[in-house]
C-alpha cells in the first residue's frame, strides 16, 4: 500500500499545524485539537441545508451531489455522485454535480485529514461517507412520505426519485421536499445490501460532464472572465534557485494594454488588460539580471553522474527501508547479477497550463481556480495575506489535467497569483496565466532517479538475496506534508512492499536523497513511475537468465509470497493477451504487474521496433483489481488513459538541463504520445466486492516495464535508462 498523505502519520503533526496557524493568525491560543480543526479555523459557518454538505435538492427535485474531490479527468465526481444516487434511489439521468468549495471541516479527505485529492484515494476514502449521505437523504424522504400517508416506513419503496407507498400511492422528491427537509437526518442511516445495487457497477454510470466538455463550456480557470479582470504573466528565473537582481520595465510599461509591472518574490509580474498584452509586455522587459549564487548550475547529466557516484558510496547518507536476513554473506556466491536504471525528470504537462484567479482586499482573499488540495492552498495563502486558513475562500473549478501538478505542497503558482492580486489590491480580480513555457520549465518534476540492484540467484533460477539502492530527490522532506521524517516513503514505494520480497530470504534496501534547487513533486503514480520499471524489468531479466517464462516466473514468486491478488490479475492478463501464442513479423509480448494505491494492475504489450528504431506498441491489455468498480466504464477510461500517460513518459518523456537551463520548453521539445502512436487497449476489471481502492494512478506505471520486457523478449536487450527513444 502506498503512503497516504495522512498529516498525523506523514509529518504534518499537530504541532506543525498549530505553528502554521499561529504564524498565519498572529497571537493565537490554541488548545488540543486536530490538524483539520486548526486548518479550518477562520472559516465562516456554512449552512449546507437539510441534507448536509454532500446532497442538495432543488425545488424541482433535481439532486445535486457535491464532489469533495476535484475533477481533473479521473471521473471521480461522476463516481461519487453515482454512490449518492444509488443509496438515494435518485433518478441518475437527472443527477447533477457541484465541486465542493474550500472547506476543510466539511470536506476533509478521511484518509489525509485535510481537504485534497491525491494518492488515488477518492473512492476509497469517500465510499462509506457518500453512501451514508445518500442513504440519509433517502430515509428523510421515506419518513416524510410515511408521515404524509400515515403508513409504516417499511411499506415504502423509492425508485428513480419517486417514492411509492401502499395502495398505489406515489410522490416525487419534488413533491415531498418541503416535508423531507424538516425530517431529522438519521444518525446511522441504513445502507443497501450491495446485492441490491442497481446503478453502481453498471454501464449506466456515465460521465456527467461529457456534454459540457464536448461543447466548449467554460469550465476551466483559463475560461474565467470577471468584470474589470486583469491578466498577469510572470518572468521567472531561467534557473532553479535564481533570484531577481534588477530589471528595466520602461519599455514593457509602454506596451498597449499593460497596466503595471512590478517585482514579486518569484520574478517580474506584468499585469495587463488581456493575456496577449501581458505576454507582449513580458517580452519587452529589458536588462533583466538574475543572481545565480544559489541556483542549480549543473546539467542533468552531471546530476545523474553524482547520483551514480552516490549509489556506489557506502558512506553516503543511506536510510534503510526494507531489511531482512543476513546480507553480509548473501552476495558472496557465484551467481550475483547487477542491474542499474536511470530515470529522467518528467514534466506533468497537463493540457491546461497552471493558472489561478484571485481577489485580494486587505487581508480578505477569494479565489476561483482548480485547487487540488484546498487546505494546503489555504494554509499557504493565509500566510501571504495575514489571515486564518479557513478564511481563504476557494471556489473549485474543473482542471484541464493535473497529474499531481496542481497539488503543489507550497502552492507555488497560487501564492504567486495572490501576491500579484495583493499588490493590485482593491478586490480587483487578477488572472495569473502561465504560458506553456512557464509551465514546462517551472519545475515540480517527477524527480530524476538512479536505481542500483544486485540479486543473488539460487540454483533454481530464483532470487535468494536482493540488494537495492535508490538515489532520488525527496519533495516531501522538510515540507508541511513530509515534516522531519528520515524516510520519505514516496521515494521508494513499490520497492518497499514488493510482493517479491516475501519470497526472498535476504533483502537489503536503502535510499539516499540528495538535494538540488530543481523542484520536484508527485507525478501520476508517484514512486511507482520508477519502481514498477525497476522491479518488473529486473524480474524479466532474471527469468530470461533462468530460462523460465516470465509469466511462470512471476506465478512461482506470487504463489510463494501468498500474493493472491497479483496472481489473479496476472492470470487474467495472460489469458486475455493470448500469452504463449507465437507472434509474427518481429512483434513480441511483454508483461508487467505492479501494485499501487491499493490496486494491482497488469499490462501485456505487443511491441516491435519500427524502421526508425522506435518501439511501436500496437496492442495493450490492462487488467486491474480495484475492489468494487463503481463506474466500470470510467475505470476502463482510466486504464486506457493511464496507460497512454505512462507510455508517453516511457517512450519520450524527459526534461533535461544544460548548465542549469531547462532544454525542453514546449511540446516541440517535450515529445508526448499522439494518436498515431497510441495502441489499441483492452481493459478488464477483476470482479470484486472488496472496498474500492485506487484507479486514477495504478494504470500508469505498468506499461513501461511491459514495453521494456517486450523489447527484451524481442531480442533488443535490456533497458537501462528511460526514455526508450533518446532525442
Amino acid at each position: 500500500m502506498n503512503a497516504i498523505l495522512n498529516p498525523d502519520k506523514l509529518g504534518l503533526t499537530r504541532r506543525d499545524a498549530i505553528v502554521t496557524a499561529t504564524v498565519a493568525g498572529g497571537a493565537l491560543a490554541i488548545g488540543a485539537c486536530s490538524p483539520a480543526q486548526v486548518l479550518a479555523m477562520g472559516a465562516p459557518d456554512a449552512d449546507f441545508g437539510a441534507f448536509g454538505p454532500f446532497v442538495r435538492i432543488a425545488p424541482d427535485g433535481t439532486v445535486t451531489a457535491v464532489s469533495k474531490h476535484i475533477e481533473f479527468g479521473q471521473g471521480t465526481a461522476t463516481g461519487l455522485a453515482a454512490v449518492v444516487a444509488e443509496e438515494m434511489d435518485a433518478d441518475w439521468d437527472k443527477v447533477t454535480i457541484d465541486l465542493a468549495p474550500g472547506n476543510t471541516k466539511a470536506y476533509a479527505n478521511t484518509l489525509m485529514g485535510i481537504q485534497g485529492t491525491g494518492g488515488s484515494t477518492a473512492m476509497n476514502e469517500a465510499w462509506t461517507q457518500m453512501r451514508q449521505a445518500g442513504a440519509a437523504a433517502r430515509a428523510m424522504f421515506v419518513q416524510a412520505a410515511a408521515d404524509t400517508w400515515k403508513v409504516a416506513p417499511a411499506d415504502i419503496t423509492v425508485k428513480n426519485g419517486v417514492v411509492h407507498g401502499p395502495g398505489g400511492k406515489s410522490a416525487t422528491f419534488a413533491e415531498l421536499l418541503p416535508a423531507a427537509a424538516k425530517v431529522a437526518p438519521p444518525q446511522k442511516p441504513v445502507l443497501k445490501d450491495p446485492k441490491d445495487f442497481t446503478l453502481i457497477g453498471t454501464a449506466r454510470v456515465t460521465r456527467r460532464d461529457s456534454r459540457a466538455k464536448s461543447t466548449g463550456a467554460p469550465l476551466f480557470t483559463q475560461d474565467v472572465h470577471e468584470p474589470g479582470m486583469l491578466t498577469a504573466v510572470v518572468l521567472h528565473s531561467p534557473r532553479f534557485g535564481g533570484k531577481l537582481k534588477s530589471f528595466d520595465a520602461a519599455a514593457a510599461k509602454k506596451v498597449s494594454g499593460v497596466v503595471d509591472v512590478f517585482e514579486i518574490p518569484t520574478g517580474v509580474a506584468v499585469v495587463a488588460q488581456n493575456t496577449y498584452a501581458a505576454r507582449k509586455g513580458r517580452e519587452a522587459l529589458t536588462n533583466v539580471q538574475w543572481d545565480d549564487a544559489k541556483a542549480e548550475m549543473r546539467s542533468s547529466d552531471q546530476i545523474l553522474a553524482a547520483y551514480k557516484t552516490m549509489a556506489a558510496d557506502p558512506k553516503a547518507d543511506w536510510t534503510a527501508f526494507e531489511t531482512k536476513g543476513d546480507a553480509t554473506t548473501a552476495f558472496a556466491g557465484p551467481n550475483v547479477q547487477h542491474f542499474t536504471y536511470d530515470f529522467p525528470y518528467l514534466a506533468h504537462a497537463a493540457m491546461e497550463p497552471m493558472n489561478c484567479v484571485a481577489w485580494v482586499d486587505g487581508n480578505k482573499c477569494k479565489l476561483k481556480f482548480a485547487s487540488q488540495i484546498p487546505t494546503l492552498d489555504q494554509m499557504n495563502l493565509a500566510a501571504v495575506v495575514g489571515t486564518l486558513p479557513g478564511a481563504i475562500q476557494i471556489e473549485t473549478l474543473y482542471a484541464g489535467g493535473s497529474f499531481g501538478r496542481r497539488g503543489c505542497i507550497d502552492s507555488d503558482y497560487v501564492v504567486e497569483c495572490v501576491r500579484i492580486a495583493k499588490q493590485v489590491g482593491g478586490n480587483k480580480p487578477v488572472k495569473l496565466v502561465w504560458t506553456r513555457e512557464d509551465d514546462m520549465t517551472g519545475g515540480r518534476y517527477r524527480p530524476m532517479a538512479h536505481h542500483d540492484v544486485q540479486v543473488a540467484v539460487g540454483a533454481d533460477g530464483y532470487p535468494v538475496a536482493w540488494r537495492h539502492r535508490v538515489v532520488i530527490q525527496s519533495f516531501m522532506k522538510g515540507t508541511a506534508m513530509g515534516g522531519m521524517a528520515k524516510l520519505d516513503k514516496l521515494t521508494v514505494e513499490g520497492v518497499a512492499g514488493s510482493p517479491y520480497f516475501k519470497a526472498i530470504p535476504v533483502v537489503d534496501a536503502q535510499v539516499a536523497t540528495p538535494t538540488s534547487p530543481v523542484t520536484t513533486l508527485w507525478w501520476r503514480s508517484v514512486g511507482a513511475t520508477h519502481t514498477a520499471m525497476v522491479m518488473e524489468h529486473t524480474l524479466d531479466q532474471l527469468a530470461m537468465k533462468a530460462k523460465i517464462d516470465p509469466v511462470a516466473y512471476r506465478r512461482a514468486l506470487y504463489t510463494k509470497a501468498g500474493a493472491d491478488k497479483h496472481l489473479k490479475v496476472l492470470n487474467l492478463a495472460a489469458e486475455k493477451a493470448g500469452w504463449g501464442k507465437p507472434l509474427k513479423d518481429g512483434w513480441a509480448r511483454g508483461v508487467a504487474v505492479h501494485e499501487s494505491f491499493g490496486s494491482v494492475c497488469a499490462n501485456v504489450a505487443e511491441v516491435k521496433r519500427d524502421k526508425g528504431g522506435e518501439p511501436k506498441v500496437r496492442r495493450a491489455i490492462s487488467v486491474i483489481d480495484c475492489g468494487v468498480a463503481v463506474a466500470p466504464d470510467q475505470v476502463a477510461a482510466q486504464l486506457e488513459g493511464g496507460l497512454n500517460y505512462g507510455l508517453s513518459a516511457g517512450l519520450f518523456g524527459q526534461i533535461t538541463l544544460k548548465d542549469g537551463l531547462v532544454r525542453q520548453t514546449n511540446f516541440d521539445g517535450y515529445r508526448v504520445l499522439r494518436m498515431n502512436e497510441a495502441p489499441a487497449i483492452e481493459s478488464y476489471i477483476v470482479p470484486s466486492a472488496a472496498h474500492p481502492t485506487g484507479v486514477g494512478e495504478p494504470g500508469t506505471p505498468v506499461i513501461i516495464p511491459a514495453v521494456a520486457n517486450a523489447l527484451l523478449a524481442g531480442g533488443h536487450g535490456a533497458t537501462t535508462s528511460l526514455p526508450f527513444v533518446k532525442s
Partner: protein
Amino acid sequence: MTTQLDINGKTYPVAADPDTPLLWVLRDELHLTGTKYGCGIAACGACTVHADGQPIRSCQAPVGSLAGMKITTIEGLNGAHPIQAAWVKHDVPQCGYCQSGQIMSAVALVKDKPKPTDAEIDAAMAGNICRCGAYPRIRAAIKDAAGQHASSAKVA
C-alpha cells in the same frame, strides 16, 4: 485599425492589432472560450478552429490574415454535430481541455472523408495532443459518427 471577422455566422469588429493571434481575440475579447490555449506554437491542437472549413491553429493565425474568411469555433457547432453526439456517447472527454480542438479536427476530417480509415484518422488527429490519453475513444467516436463499427473499451 479594425478587422471585421466572420465568426460562427456573425460579424465582429475587432480592434486588436492585426498581428494578434485569433486565439486571444476569441478568448479574451469575444469570450468564446471553448477554443483553448495549450502551447501557443501550433504544436498541440487545443486551439483548432475552422477557416473556410479547413482546420487551423488559431494561436498562429493573426486576425489580420482572416478578414473575409468564415471562422467556425466549437461554439459554432451549437452542440448539434454528430461528432459531438458520438463524443458524449463514448464518454471521450476526461479532463476535457483538449476536446474542443479534437472535435474541430474530427469534424473537418469526416467532412472531407466521411468514412475515414485508421491511417486517415491518425493523419488528421496526430496534431491534437490529449494528455489524458483518450485516443482510443476519440478513434472509436469518430468511427461511430462516421457510421462505422466501433468497439469501445471492453470491460470484463
